């Protein structure tokens, strides 16, 4: 930057710098405009329209679609279930991942293979993983049901309809969601563990700290950065997750196993209300923003250790 007038200008970029930077950031800007802002605009626009079942736009209705979303008698149970879904999945995912990452961080024979194995749920399609469990849970022919019948835990010969009842279907969905979230979370934490300097742990050992104490007061605080990324991305991912619940609870009548995402899907698929679905999408979008804002405010994940 030979022609830069001075150090002060470098700190506060002016219009000229922006113009110079534009060619470099333009592709990214175009992408954000086209892929994020434009669909968001269309979504918000649709949420204020009256769109017929066959998809014809019949004009503006103001915020009527939002009224419909909030006056739906099952909205609040669905909202609470969504929160339960996110909190339970994220908490268990992070706790289990912390354990797995700790094991994978130790040198042992075959570690490379075990590390690869942990990636498998990530590499496999979520729908595929879910379908495998779904069929395993089917009465009459599912292997999981067959196993439970054979060991005598279920006494009806055709097995239990795990995916036919809202509560059990929802619990199994949570288990699958945790399973598929583990690889990403584990690897993020593993990366965090790699940055913990070994001399801090050595120092703790020299001072006679117990392994538990070393972990909670030396290692864990240094994982703050990695953990906050893992939690944040998991919250967003899990909140927006449709396929698992769609497969696991799809055949259940009523709205006793729905989250906001499956409800959006039901508005489109069963009721053909693209307008109301858009309104609920906007609401979901705001909820995620609020959750993330609260998380950032309370946990302050970006604060230096």
């Amino acid at each position: 930057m030979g022609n830069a007038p001075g150090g002060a200008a470098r700190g506060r970029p002016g219009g000229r710098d922006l113009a110079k930077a534009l060619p470099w950031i333009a592709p990214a800007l175009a992408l954000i405009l086209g892929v994020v802002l434009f669909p968001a605009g269309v979504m918000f626009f649709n949420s204020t329209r009256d769109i017929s079942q066959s998809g014809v736009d019949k004009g503006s209705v103001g915020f009527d679609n939002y009224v419909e979303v909030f006056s739906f008698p099952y909205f609040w149970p669905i909202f609470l279930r969504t929160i339960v879904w996110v909190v339970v999945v994220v908490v268990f995912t992070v706790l289990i991942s912390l354990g797995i990452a700790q094991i994978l961080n130790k040198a042992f024979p075959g570690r490379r293979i075990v590390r690869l194995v942990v990636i498998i749920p990530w590499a496999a399609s979520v729908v595929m993983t879910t379908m495998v469990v779904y069929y395993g849970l089917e009465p009459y022919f599912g292997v999981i049901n067959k196993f439970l019948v054979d060991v005598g835990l279920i006494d009806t010969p055709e097995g239990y309809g795990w995916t036919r009842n809202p509560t059990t279907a929802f619990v199994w969905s949570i288990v699958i969601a945790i399973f598929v979230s583990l690889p990403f979370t584990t690897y993020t934490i593993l990366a965090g563990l790699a940055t913990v300097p070994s001399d801090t742990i050595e120092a703790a050992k020299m001072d006679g700290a117990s392994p538990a104490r070393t972990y909670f007061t030396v290692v864990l605080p240094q994982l703050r950065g990695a953990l906050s990324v893992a939690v944040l991305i998991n919250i967003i991912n899990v909140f927006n997750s449709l396929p698992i619940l769609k497969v696991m609870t799809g055949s259940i009548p009523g709205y006793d196993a729905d989250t906001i995402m499956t409800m959006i899907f039901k508005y489109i698929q069963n009721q053909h209300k693209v307008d109301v679905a858009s309104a609920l999408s906007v609401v979901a979008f705001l909820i995620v923003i609020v959750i993330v804002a609260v998380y950032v405010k309370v946990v302050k994940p970006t604060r230096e250790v």
Partner: protein
Amino acid sequence: MKKSHRFGAIALAAAATLTLASCGFGGGSSGGDASGKTTLNLLVPSYSDNTQGLWEDVISGFEKANPDIKVELEVQSWDNLESVIATKIQGGEAPDIYNGGPFAGFAADELLYPAKDVVSSDTYSDFQDAFLANAEVDGTAYALPLIASARALFVNNALLEQAGVAAPPTTWDELLDAATKVSALGGGVAGYGMPLGSEEAQAEAAVWLWGGGGSFGDASKITVDDPANLPGAEQIKKMIDAGATQADPGSTNRSPLMDIFVQGKIGMQVGLPPTVGQIEEGNPDLDYSIVPIPTKDGSAFTLGVMDQLMAFKNDDSKKDAITKFFDYYYSADVYVPWVQTEGFLPVTKSGAEALSGEEALKPFLDVLPDAQFYPSTNPKWSATDGAFKSLFGQIQTKSAQDVLTEIQAQADAG
């Protein structure tokens, strides 16, 4: 630095949320006619593994006879079909010819050609009158009947014999009695297979509610919450409470349950003509018979379903090409093998004649005169259909009246 991190987190949240929200906007197919040919876009659902091949045969035959017309085929699964068509219409990419179920919504939005305008008068008069009447909105047929199907009760003879039931049931009381006895055999055997899950809840609902003298309404009014529908709904509850059905009927889908019947673990279940082929393929040794669906008083009844072809008004220059295609398709030489391979019943007079000697279709052709249809010409039918799919299964746990009221409310709101 802190600020930008926080902003980054929110931007990330935004991007991730929007990815899901925006996935409803799919692309459509474009009707490019570079060589001066007329291109017809054809959107059809998949009835079986044969569907794509059958349509490809029709198209190649048609293109050979009409070298100036090109037909682009798109096959979708039934699950996706209605969202695909809605997305295409919203994007101004409606297909020229569409094979689907409910069409009254499209007719109300003035998107369709009247049937008379897109077939020759010979073809038009060859349709069975009852089917054509079922495609009318305010006296004008907006869709062409494509295939028909009727339902009948499939009975596992071996299981009924084992349970000591002498003859297949013809009334609800006999059905309840027979199904309870079969269920009592134990070993995972269920007396009556009752699929009220989201896949096709409206069909099983119709079998019961209409069999008790009810109806879903007509072209102008949806009447699900009607006292006439209560006996049927109460009888469903009676069957469930007596343990005469498989477990969790409210969330069991039809296709997987039919597989269990084919395996010989269910005493009785309502099936369709293609079920015959399914048994042939999956378990040819199954000893079964096909009888009319039992009703409250034993009177004959079947649920008829008709799927239609409809032509969208995209570009008036394509009208002639569409007419040519329909006339070609409905000629007996093309149409009959098509219907026969798919295992459905023909809707043309010439087709019915050609297939009258078919043994497997006979039980269904016999009940066809007593067929009642969904009120599919009612613009609210699509919403009603969706309401049945997502709500009717609750009858397993809720009171019959509550479920009917809830479905009516959702149908009216649609």
